């Protein structure tokens, strides 16, 4: 009897001590996966093809979520990533058709580098809130992308570009997935095992303390925002490669999915934490929900409503701090 009570107390303590904020995403991911497998198994949810599809569709979100995790860990935000992806896709496509493969890739990356550096410079040097800087940048960059293309798509014919960026396979594995796995792995190592990652979390955890300890917090903020721009540019080229064209619409609205993925993954909007693997699962979770809702036969408007509600609930759960 007493051992039973002991066990119950122990498991109760476990429930109390379990860090919901950190781990809700894994619980949610498994629960939704099982639910969809049970209810949508007949609609083809569990086929290897469909699961691969989910992974492929969420690859760009996952990649951008890695960079966003760094940004949010410093308690900043980057709203311009979706439009940077769009601009990089068109600039890259234009340069590709005029000057060849290398120029195309460099031009795309340069877009991210420049926009990211401007964002970072304004935030780090002029202390303008990143929310405002990147909100303004969002509009500016979309406008630029429409302007230089007259809002028209720019087709891409270069096979190597398409193969490298999202269109092809390597030994049967879609290159998109390879990109995602490599960037997530890099991000996780940098966040957890390098001085830079440590200083990123220190900057967001308590900027003043970090400064007193000798962390150059302004430089850290500059770097993470620049990094975010570059990664968004890579995501833009992945869109361009997969869809064989550059378009200003590529990436539109992605910033919201990316931020949701990061928060779902257990990274706090207040900074100081950065869960890269969590962000990956956050992105996969959103992809899973999108896919499941389509298979369930909901139309686009219904999907939007349900998706929004699921994200609100999940984010609320993941930011809830269970009292100790």
């Amino acid at each position: 009897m007493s051992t039973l009570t002991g066990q119950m107390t122990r498991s109760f303590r476990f429930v109390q001590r379990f860090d919901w904020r950190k781990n809700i995403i894994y619980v949610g991911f498994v629960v939704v996966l099982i639910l969809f497998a049970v209810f949508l198994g007949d609609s083809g949810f569990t086929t290897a093809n469909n699961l691969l599809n989910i992974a492929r569709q969420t690859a760009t979100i996952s990649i951008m979520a890695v960079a966003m995790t760094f940004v949010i860990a410093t308690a900043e935000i980057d709203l311009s990533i979706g439009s940077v992806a769009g601009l990089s896709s068109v600039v890259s496509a234009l340069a590709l058709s005029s000057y060849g493969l290398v120029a195309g890739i460099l031009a795309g990356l340069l877009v991210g580098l420049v926009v990211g550096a401007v964002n970072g410079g304004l935030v780090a040097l002029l202390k303008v809130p990143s929310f405002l800087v990147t909100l303004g940048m969002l509009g500016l960059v979309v406008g630029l992308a429409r302007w230089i293309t007259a809002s028209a798509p720019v087709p891409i014919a270069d096979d190597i570009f398409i193969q490298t960026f999202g269109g092809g396979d390597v030994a049967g594995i879609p290159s998109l997935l390879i990109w995602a796995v490599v960037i997530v792995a890099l991000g996780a190592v940098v966040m957890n095992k390098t001085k830079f990652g440590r200083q990123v979390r220190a900057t967001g955890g308590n900027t003043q303390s970090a400064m007193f300890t000798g962390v150059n917090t302004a430089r850290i903020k500059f770097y993470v925002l620049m990094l975010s721009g570059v990664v968004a540019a890579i995501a833009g080229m992945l869109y361009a490669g997969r869809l064989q064209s550059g378009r200003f619409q590529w990436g539109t609205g992605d910033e919201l999915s990316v931020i949701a993925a990061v928060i779902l993954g257990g990274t706090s909007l207040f900074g100081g934490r950065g869960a890269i693997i969590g962000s990956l699962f956050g992105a996969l979770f959103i992809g899973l929900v999108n896919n499941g809702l389509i298979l369930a036969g909901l139309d686009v408007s219904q999907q939007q409503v349900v998706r929004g509600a699921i994200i609100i609930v999940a984010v609320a759960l993941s930011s809830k701090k269970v009292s100790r």
Partner: protein
Amino acid sequence: MSTTPVLAVEMTGITKAFSGVPVLREVGFELSVGEVHALAGENGAGKSTLMKILQGVYQRDGGDVKVAGELVSLPDTFAARSAGIGMVFQEFSLIPTLTVWENIFLTAEPMGRFGLINDSLAREKAEAIFSDMGVSVDVTAQLENLPTALWQLTEIAKALAQNARVLIMDEPTASLAKHETNALFELIERLQARGISIIYISHRMDEVYRVADRITVLRDGRNALTAKLSDVTPAQIVAAIVGREMSGIMAHEDRSAQISKEAVMTVTGLASGKNLSNITFDLHRGEILGLAGLMGSGRTELVNTLFGIDRATAGTITMNGTTVSIRNPKHAISLGLALIPEDRRAQGLVLEHSVQENITLPLLDELKSGPLLGNAKIFARAAEIIGKFSIKVADQTMPVSKLSGGNQQKVVIGKWLGTDPDILMMDEPTAGVDIGTKKEILAMVRQIADDGKAVIIISSELPELLSVSDRILVLRDGEVIRDLARADIPSEEFLQLAVQGA
């Protein structure tokens, strides 16, 4: 190793002025190797300026600093740290979201292969530091999940990891429980035995006697006393802290005729968690009740509990004959209480808003014309309060941020008096204002009490408390240890000794 003992720190003829006002005048300070040297003085005596010069935060105007026998210039905090000066107990050097070992090695992580941090080595080193210190701490725990005492140990470990030879501890026991304080003192002895020198800033006389070898007292930016603790009495130390001359403007006015027999509030056996226990006192109409005590003695917690911010866990509060249980600040306001908090900038004022908006914020219900706010009413009401307390403001629509600190404080007081409370509580109302404004604020407090209100006032500055209070409660460790009528306090020294529990 030279045969003559080298001083760990030697500061001579240090001068420093802020915008022309001298804060340190030819101050000297020395610290032997392995010594614990206490540093004392009233607020504004220059202690923290002197320590900030040693830490490289401020640059001295004149004088020399030697660390371990060598002249150093200390242009910034990094230079001070590499000279071996470590500051502990400034909470702002730790990151709550990182683990203990991550904090200890932040910016100085032991590196392994491929430019990656060697986690296991860092953890081992952190554990080694703690075991040298003779304490056991889970170095992988996230700091925000640990109690304050462990934050302090982490600070010490961090300083030691940076090879600090001199530690500056500023009121290290302020937030510690008794057994944690004892553990800290034992740690200090072990550090001393290893040749670490410690500058110990504290107002607590018993602690100073227990832990320190020598004491230096500063007063008005000058050296007032340096002595071995075995050679001085607490009374001598207090005399050095206070100085002989009592400033005339701080004279006490006898107001006993104004105080009514009738108690507006009776508190019996009040407790709040671990912060307060068995608090009992009466408060009379027209009375100014001073709360004296060191930081962490429970002064702020007491007014916060009376105002419903902290929860009362035992005891009763009776107001005007009925027992009340104060649920939250809104409830407290409806019962006729008002609290002017310590950090007025953070808690008492909306700085970007106008003087007028700030003053009328608690009065909006009474200033409505129908569903909308009546501009004329607001203007008139604000003008009335501004005039009554002679707040110096050219235009009541200008933002509060443009006013001087003293006038900001008057706006806060005016704001709460607008609600016509029976009991006004003020936490450090004169912090950071100049002496002239201080005098005006104290006159304002007397005027409020003369109008028949009861006032509870907290101040760390004893001359000010003695000047304005009709009665003084001395708190220590969350309990009232003395309840003194003003007439029974012969001198500031007497009160100072009571506060420090010597």
